[in-house]
């Protein structure tokens, strides 16, 4: 899969000098944890390093998302906890229209200035003034922000929006004393960031590598344990896989085909991987504005026809599990509605049953009238469809190839087409497709998944489907349920609303959930430890995650395995 | 002596070539103000050194080039304005050409019979079964017998002399009145040159053809041509009966040319001739006589303008101020 190129800035010589004092060998401190070492991280493809650490850049340097600029609070995807970070907590008002965050005291910017709520206020106002910087789209529901004191800040909402807390908690404050001096914060290339993060000092930046050194003024005493994090450039999976096998990478987030044999087998004691199936669900979308996809029976047949195990094991290399029919997956187990699941089982959804699928189609009138081996529409018109998938996304391409093979097996003439990403997306957004594989939204609650898939307001005036409402299956019931969820902060009420949504989902099959997106994650314990492991998966372990800053939890936790292993690199 | 009407006549024929790009265009004055006549049953030789413009003259008459100025009068009518395929085709059925190099004037990918059939087809001289007969006749005429041995062959399977005979046969196919022969023997082996010249002489006599014989070889002009014209740097400088001209050259250039030809018959070890200078480049020819720079008799007016034609006798003229009474 093709990802973005990262970018970078100049080394601050002075800082290198200051910091190098602390380098040169792992020194155990009072807590007995060895210090020092440089952790090599790799998770996305780039070939040259560019100097840009702006937290607002549209395609950010992943490092600036967490290690340099920290969020107010860290959302742990694995257990759903929201962990205090630069903010120690927040309080909702009873009417759910104001939200008050308490800002941590004793935090310093890495230039020695004090961090307080003024910086948060400045940052919020900056994103209001420059919508291009509003990365979390918080001003969509925010009305205003006001300072209660230097360490307390209040957010006033324009309407009730019960998910606002998590969104605002993701805000990464920037230093007012630096950013207020800028001419244009939008085009600011933040090459020498002033930030609070554990690795916010850019101490090496070269054409093919950059290193972020530990922030000596970091507010968590004694942390981070390692001296620096290194990002080398690898232009593709093949090259990073080679580097992983070679032991060059300590912490990876790469797709590796047959990771067990290619990677882990090379050093079974130290090469580890764990692919947590907690990512956003990958779905098969069907264009319900067209026949036969407007027919729930047809959609149900598709759901029954797919060999989910083959998709997961061959297409996805066994790195994930088949989705349950509600599309929620293991991450949201607590939200699951048994009723809905039972109903789905009754309907035979998400079970590979070609004969049942064929029977469903027979029943609904999709028969091979002309004897060409393929079924026709109930009205006798020929039926053929393209299943589209992005060219180059090979795991998906294979999955779709299996699916089209499954459909052909039940007499549905389905062909795979592989447009380029741009055209693929455009087809989905404008509804110019038959069937397509696609991602969905992940979020803090399952609400995001259903909202982005079913909310009729996401279909714009130009017939452009925003978010992932690409199936274009809408109903008043769904809209009402979605609105009801954010109008309350009561967990029971929210649970009930979601149960109803799940039932509506399995009844109508607006799309077919395939599998939760796996999160590639490898770690190498030749030198470092402290990573989340399969047994102790304390947070999402991949150094890269679209949705969360949980890698921050890992970064402040990893350390050298002993006093000698990370001595000199 | 000359009572017959000329069949083909050049009148003030001039050809300038433009060469070079837009930046540095040069004009090559390949032929300047040439006037002469070709008569049925007569061979007129055009003699000159390489680059003197003699081939250009032949190609102008063959309508391979468009003249810059002047007239090409065929049977009393100017044909320069005859453009378009049908008019040119008519002209070409009367005037044909033989090229210097029989190795390149026949297309290596076509058989001999193709080469001979094409003109017959184009000019509708024969059809169907007649065609083969006609082709055989032509090969007979040029003494390539038995014809059936030659028709399926390709040019590379023939010797130079045989090829040149094929080329002559091709020219004859359209039953022309005029043949322009551009150095037809210079690429051939010495021993077979006479065969070709004699063949052409026979055709002249039997078919009453008019020949323009372009050559650099004065001796062969004397042998084959009734009349000879001498060219120098784009100008015809002298013209007359071949025997008369070679035995009694008038123009200083003709004299030079003749003295340079090795001729054991004149006695071995001939007197050395003082020859200075080289032929001027055709793009540098000025207004005056092009030979002025090398002429032992040069006068000041020679450098100013090209001398006019001075008639020495009914058949003889020269362009040189030495003979200009005016």
């Amino acid at each position, binding site marked *: 899969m093709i990802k973005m190129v990262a970018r970078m800035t100049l080394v601050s010589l002075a800082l290198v000098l200051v910091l190098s004092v602390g380098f040169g060998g792992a020194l155990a401190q009072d807590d007995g944890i060895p210090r020092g070492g440089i952790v090599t991280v790799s998770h996305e493809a780039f070939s040259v390093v560019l100097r840009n650490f702006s937290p607002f850049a549209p395609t950010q340097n992943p490092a600036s998302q967490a290690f340099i600029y920290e969020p107010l609070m860290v959302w742990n995807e694995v257990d759903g906890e929201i962990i205090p970070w630069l903010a120690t907590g927040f309080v909702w008002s009873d009417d759910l229209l104001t939200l008050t965050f308490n800002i941590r005291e004793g935090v310093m910017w890495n230039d020695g200035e004090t961090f307080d709520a003024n910086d948060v206020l400045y940052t919020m106002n900056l994103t209001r003034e420059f919508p291009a910087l509003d990365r979390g789209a918080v001003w969509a529901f925010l009305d205003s922000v006001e300072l209660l004191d230097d360490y307390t800040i209040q957010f006033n909402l324009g309407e009730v929006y019960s998910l606002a807390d998590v969104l605002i908690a993701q805000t990464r404050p920037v230093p007012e004393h630096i950013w207020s001096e800028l001419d244009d914060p939008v085009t600011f290339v933040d090459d020498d960031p002033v930030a609070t993060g554990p690795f916010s000092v850019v101490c090496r930046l070269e054409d093919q590598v950059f290193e972020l050194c530990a922030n000596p003024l970091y507010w968590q005493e004694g942390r981070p344990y390692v001296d620096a994090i290194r990002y080398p450039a690898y232009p593709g999976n093949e090259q990073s896989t080679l580097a992983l096998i070679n032991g060059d990478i300590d912490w990876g987030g790469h797709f590796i085909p047959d990771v067990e044999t290619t990677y882990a087998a090379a050093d079974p004691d130290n090469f580890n991987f764990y692919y947590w199936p907690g990512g956003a669900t990958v779905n098969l979308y069907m264009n319900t504005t067209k026949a036969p996809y407007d027919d729930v029976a047809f959609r149900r047949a598709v759901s029954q026809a797919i060999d989910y195990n083959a998709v997961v094991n*061959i297409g996805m290399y066994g790195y994930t599990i088949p989705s349950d029919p509600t599309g929620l997956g293991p991450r949201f187990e607590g939200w699951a509605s048994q009723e809905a699941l039972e109903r789905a089982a009754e309907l035979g959804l998400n079970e590979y049953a070609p004969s049942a699928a064929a029977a469903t189609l027979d029943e609904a009138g999709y028969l091979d009238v002309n004897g060409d081996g393929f079924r026709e529409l109930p009205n006798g018109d020929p039926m053929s469809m393209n299943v589209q998938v992005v*060219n180059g996304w090979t795991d998906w391409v294979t999955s779709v190839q299996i699916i089209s*093979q499954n459909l052909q097996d039940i007499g549905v003439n389905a062909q795979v087409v592989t447009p*380029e990403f741009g055209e693929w997306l455009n087809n989905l957004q404008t509804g110019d497709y038959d069937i397509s594989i696609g991602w969905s939204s992940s979020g803090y609650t399952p609400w995001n998944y259903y909202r982005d898939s079913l909310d009729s307001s996401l279909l714009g005036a130009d017939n452009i489907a925003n978010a992932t409402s690409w199936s274009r299956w809408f109903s008043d019931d769904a809209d009402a349920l979605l609105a009801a969820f954010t109008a309350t902060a009561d967990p029971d009420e929210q649970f009930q609303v979601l149960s109803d949504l799940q039932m509506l989902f399995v009844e109508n099959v607006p799309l077919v959930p395939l599998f939760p997106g796996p999160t590639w994650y490898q770690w190498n314990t030749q030198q470092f430890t402290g990573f989340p492991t399969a047994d102790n998966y304390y947070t999402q372990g991949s150094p890269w995650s679209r949705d969360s800053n949980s890698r921050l939890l890992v970064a402040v936790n990893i350390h050298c395995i002993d006093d000698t292993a990370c001595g000199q690199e | 002596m000359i009572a017959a009407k000329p069949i083909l006549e050049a009148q003030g024929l001039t050809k300038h070539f433009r060469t070079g790009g837009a930046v540095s265009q040069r004009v090559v004055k390949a032929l300047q103000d040439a006037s002469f006549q070709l008569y049925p049953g007569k061979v007129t030789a055009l003699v000159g050194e390489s680059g003197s413009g003699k081939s250009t003259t032949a190609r102008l008459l063959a309508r391979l080039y468009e003249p810059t100025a002047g007239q090409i009068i065929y049977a009393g009518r100017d044909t320069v304005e005859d453009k378009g*395929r049908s008019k040119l085709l008519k002209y070409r059925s009367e005037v044909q050409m033989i090229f210097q190099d029989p190795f*390149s004037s026949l297309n290596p990918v076509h058989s001999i019979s193709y080469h001979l059939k094409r003109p017959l087809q*184009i000019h509708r001289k024969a059809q169907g079964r007649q065609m083969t007969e006609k082709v055989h006749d032509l090969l007979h005429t040029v003494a390539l017998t038995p014809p059936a041995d030659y028709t399926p062959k390709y040019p590379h399977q023939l010797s130079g002399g045989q090829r040149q005979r094929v080329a002559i046969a091709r020219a004859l196919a359209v039953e022309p009145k005029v043949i322009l022969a551009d150095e037809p023997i210079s690429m051939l082996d010495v021993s077979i040159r006479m065969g070709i010249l004699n063949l052409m002489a026979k055709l002249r006599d039997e078919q009453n053809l008019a020949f323009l014989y372009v050559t650099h070889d004065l001796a062969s002009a004397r042998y084959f041509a009734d009349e000879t014209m001498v060219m120098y740097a784009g100008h015809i400088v002298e013209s007359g009966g071949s025997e008369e001209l070679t035995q009694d050259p008038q123009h200083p250039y003709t004299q030079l040319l003749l003295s340079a030809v090795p001729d054991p018959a004149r006695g071995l070890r001939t007197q050395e001739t003082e020859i200075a200078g080289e032929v001027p480049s055709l793009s540098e020819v000025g207004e005056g006589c092009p030979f002025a720079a090398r002429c032992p008799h040069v006068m000041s007016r020679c450098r100013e303008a090209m001398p006019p034609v001075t008639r020495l006798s009914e058949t003889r003229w020269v362009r040189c101020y030495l003979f200009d009474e005016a």
Partner: protein
Amino acid sequence: MSTVEQPQTAVQPAGATAAPQRAFPRLPLPNWLRSILGNRKAAIGLVILSFFVFVAVFAPLIAPTQNPNRMVARPVQAPSAEYILGTTRQGQDVFVQIVHGTQVSMAVGFTTGTVVMAIAIIIGITAGYIGGIFDELLSLAMNIVLIIPALPLIIVVAGFIDRPGPLTIVVVLSLISWAYGARVLRAQTLTLRNSDFVAAARVVGEPTWRIVLFEILPNMTSLVVSSWIGAVLYAILTQASLEFIGLGDPNISSWGTILYWAQNNAALLTNAWWTFIPPGVCIALVGFSLTLINYGIDEITNPRLRREPKVKAA
């Protein structure tokens, strides 16, 4: 025009190729074929190429399948009696893929080569024969297309066409690769245009179109064929490269896409060499066979390049 624009090797008219060969009895073969078979290099090349052409033409018989990409077996099996070249990570039969890939790759190569030569012939000969401002403009176009870096342009243009696939590759390569052939043919046309046999044909009264088609073009056969072969080779290699970097249609079996999938599945790391080595070897063999044929054509048309026969002591 300056010497810079002359073609690299003077190519003699096709007639020079027709020297009778002692080694071969006079079978009813066309001359060019006899010449080629008489040249050892070209003959070897032709044999290899014929093999692949045979495989391509009879692919449906050699490896009958509706869809060569169909997942038919347990993934990643080493070559065995059942699966001669093993299976892919996706459980596809590599042999079936290679056989059908031969069809696609050869078809793309030869179609592209043919389209490229058609364009090159039209443009090259027109420019060379008509001359004048027409020639100036076409020559400028040729030289510019030659100078603009090809692969980047191909990538850009391939990206512009949203649905990649064999047809896209044919179109893109044809649009970009015609210039070299056109330039060579133009230079040759300029030479031939001034040859005596063209002048002779004009004097005889041949119309222009006949001169171009029947007098000039046949004399460039060897040049056309060798440029065509060069274009085919270039197309096959470039197709593989484009597919390898993901600008092909992964849904279609061709040598390049087999390699693309092999690389995606880390075939070399998982020791699944049978998905990586055979397609590369196929490309190289076809490439080499084309190169050999071109060596041969060079030697046939330019006798100086021939190795002189071994001289026995007198």
